[in-house]
């Protein structure tokens, strides 16, 4: 039953430097928050079926750092890191996000604001990604395509089902 999807992610570009991602989950917000901030749980979903997550470090306190890396099939390692700026447990997380594949990753880091709103046991998640420049924003979206990942999609859906 676990493969039942609550909906698809909606992505919009509110301004030249922003990306807004929205998704609803059939779970209360404290569980979404837990799955989002607990390393052994993040390891189970962040890879998006594109490879193996090799690093998942989370130091969940303001000023604390995080680092995620994965080896994507046919692409090599992709890694991201950042720092927690604001933490409201179960509701809101503000972090920086630097993609290590570009020069001056930290200077070009985005600021991500995660918001969780629960209604009747369901949680709407929004992630607002704000880049310092339009080029950074465009590059960020391009990086989502880089690992050539959609090809693996159908095949991996079956794996997801088998995990349930």
């Amino acid at each position: 039953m676990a493969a039942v999807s609550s909906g698809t992610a909606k992505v919009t570009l509110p301004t030249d430097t922003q990306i807004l991602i929205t998704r609803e989950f059939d779970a209360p917000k404290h569980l979404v928050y837990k799955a989002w901030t607990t390393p052994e749980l993040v390891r189970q979903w962040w890879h998006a079926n594109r490879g193996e997550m090799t690093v998942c470090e989370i130091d969940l306190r303001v000023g604390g750092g995080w680092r995620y890396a994965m080896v994507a099939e046919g692409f090599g390692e992709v890694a991201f890191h950042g720092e927690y700026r604001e933490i409201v447990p179960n509701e809101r997380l503000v972090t920086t996000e630097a993609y290590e594949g570009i020069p001056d990753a930290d200077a070009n880091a985005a600021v991500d604001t995660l918001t969780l709103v629960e209604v009747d046991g369901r949680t709407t998640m929004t992630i607002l990604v704000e880049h310092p420049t339009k080029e950074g924003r465009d590059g960020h979206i391009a990086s989502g395509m880089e690992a050539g990942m959609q090809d693996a999609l159908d095949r991996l859906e079956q794996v997801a089902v088998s995990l349930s």
Partner: protein
Amino acid sequence: MMLDMARAATTADAFNAVAEPRRRQILDVLAGGERPVNDLVAQLGLAQPQVSKHLRVLRQVGAVEVREAGRQRLYRLNGTALKPIYDWVSEYERSWSERFDQLDIVLEQLKEKEAGDGSSE
């Protein structure tokens, strides 16, 4: 790959053409149907030379097309030229959808576990 994309930013690509807010406004107006330049000038509140300049950029990337009708030049939207942008965002959206589908599975497990930890058994 990301950097190539950033460097490729010339006005001669659809992404750059729509990066300018005024040009997006023109596309919004044209989405409602074919319009003469005068209409666009009136709706945008810009001087005609500026509107013409934006229209030129949009024509270069094929986002708008023009035809002569008597003494008027009528502009219309050409959606297919904007499809790369749609595809580009769609792909990003798909990568997040896959990730969230995995997260759904984790959440189901957490819910079951929480229900099991409760006093229901």
